């Protein structure tokens, strides 16, 4: 089983950090207004608590656990993917069922040279997440090549 690239873990930690930072600013603004207009501070306090907890969860726990449980294998016969945090799925896609392969990357992902590979069949769509761009392209090419070799009916 091949794993996610460590950079992908750091990137999702960074993304979570940014979102929570924005939330924290919003809460700060709210509490400043609350001070000025003498509103109650309870909603801001609750929001701050929730944000802190979810920040801890999504920065410190979720990305590493996700990366630890994620794995993929590609060979001539089939693609196998394991993923999930609480609900763990083992997915098998026979090579002959692959319709096409997509490569997706957002602006932040491009900066750190990462990409997702999306495998599309006639009835489903599965992501192989957090690969280094070069590797992702190689995987995409490989799947595209092996999926084309045998033309089976769907």
């Amino acid at each position, binding site marked *: 089983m091949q794993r996610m690239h460590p950079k992908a873990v750091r990137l999702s930690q960074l993304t979570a950090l940014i979102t929570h930072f924005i939330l924290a600013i919003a809460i700060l603004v709210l509490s400043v207004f609350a001070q000025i207009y003498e509103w109650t501070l309870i909603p801001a306090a609750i929001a701050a608590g929730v944000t802190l907890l979810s920040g801890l969860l999504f920065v410190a726990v979720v990305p590493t656990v996700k990366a630890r449980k994620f794995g993929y294998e590609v060979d001539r016969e*089939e693609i196998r993917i394991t993923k999930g945090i*609480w609900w*763990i799925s083992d997915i098998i896609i026979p090579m002959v*069922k692959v319709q096409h392969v997509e490569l997706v990357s957002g602006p932040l992902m491009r900066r750190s040279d990462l990409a997702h590979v999306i495998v599309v069949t*006639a*009835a*489903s769509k599965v992501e192989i997440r957090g690969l280094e761009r070069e590797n992702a392209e190689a995987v995409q090419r490989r799947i595209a090549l092996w999926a084309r070799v045998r033309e089976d009916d769907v």
Partner: protein
Amino acid sequence: MSEPVYRRQHLLYLVVLLINRLKPMLVPAIVLVVVKGKNPLVWPPAVYYTLGAGLALVMAGSLLSWRRFSYLRDDQQLIVRSGILFRQLKTIHRNRIHSIQIQQPLLQRLFGIAQVVVETAGGGGKPEAVLHAVTLAEAREIQLLARKERSDNEVLKATTLDSSPPVAPLYGENPERGLRIHISPATFMLAAVTTSNLQLTLAFIAGLVSFADDILGESIYDSLAHTAVRYLNGPFSVLIWTGVALLLSWVLSIGLYVWKYAGFKLEGHVDRITVSYGLLEKRQLTFPVSKVQAAMLVEGLLRRPFGRGELRLLVIHSDKEAAVMLHPFVKVSEVEKLLGHLVPHIHPFAPNITPPKKAWFSFVRWKLMISALASAGMIFGFGIVLSWPTLLLIPLTVLWGHAQFCSEAAGMEGNHFALRHRRLAVTTAWMRKKHIQTLTLKASVVQRRKGWHSVEAAVMGGMKGYMFSARLLPADQVEQIKRWYSQR
């Protein structure tokens, strides 16, 4: 077959097109005349000139598009020429056709003509060609394109008739034309009465409520609610209200069901199946048997006691509906015979891998907790005198979980695969290994430790595909399924 010449659509196409184009203007017109009280007789003449000119333009356009639309059919292909400014020529070869539907929307039905929709694999969900108005006889001729050549027809017929057991005379078998099923009115009524289309009716009720809000205004609504609350208050009010809602949704389901499936007819040939149904809007769908990916039997809550269910097929076509109705009220005991005759490559067998006894509580746990909490909340809020009937929810949900536990199953036999799952209705699906697009084994961290796995199989059907599942099966047997499916 007649000689290949370019044909035009039925002249009534002009009327159909005209009415279809004027339809969007109908509502504003009604609003203007009726609601705003604008008497058409006192309109300034300029309005009439504009209207007349517009009408003339639309009519000219319709005439032109009728003149410019022609098609040619022979026994190999359908060629469609169309377009007023941009001419288009489309050749659709027989082999590429997935299905040919003969439809009769209200207008066409009134005129006794038909609309033909030709679907191929491509096209992103849009039909490849639509003939809006042809005679019924012509529509049937075109539909013959979905049929394979006569020679391999006979070969196939011989083999399937030999290998499959004779079908009961109930189906009105005719060896020349294949299999015909016509649902008798009594059976159809029973099917309609036992339907339970909850999602659709809920949406309908929601729409009705908002409509009532807009039209009737708050005052009537309030006084209605007020009266209802005054008369319907007591320990059984919850039950009565649920009962009323269920009854209403049931009546609605029956209506919708009759609207959609009345006059259901099935014609099975060796290589293709034709189904047609609809009360006012007739739909007829023909598809090659080879495009069938899976069969599913849905045994609804009210139908199970009768040993009946609805049988659907997952077919590759671009329709919104993923599963085509094959029989709306089939006897479960006859499914094997019916499928054996119509779709011999699908083998319905009883799946034998079932959840272990220890998994029973997992099916009940959450439902029990939620119903107990809800009941406790009601009692806490409104007192035991008023809300004790909610306690009945608890055994009911336990019963539901137990029924689910008893229903879940998976199994494989040769190249065939079966999955059975229950939400409220029991859905059993049969498919060939080669038609499963992806297989997923799913388990939570706790379930994994206990050795239970759920299985999901994605199969093609309609535009998006379909996912069948079975929950909490023993891990070692799920591992066998995985090995069975894997190409390694």
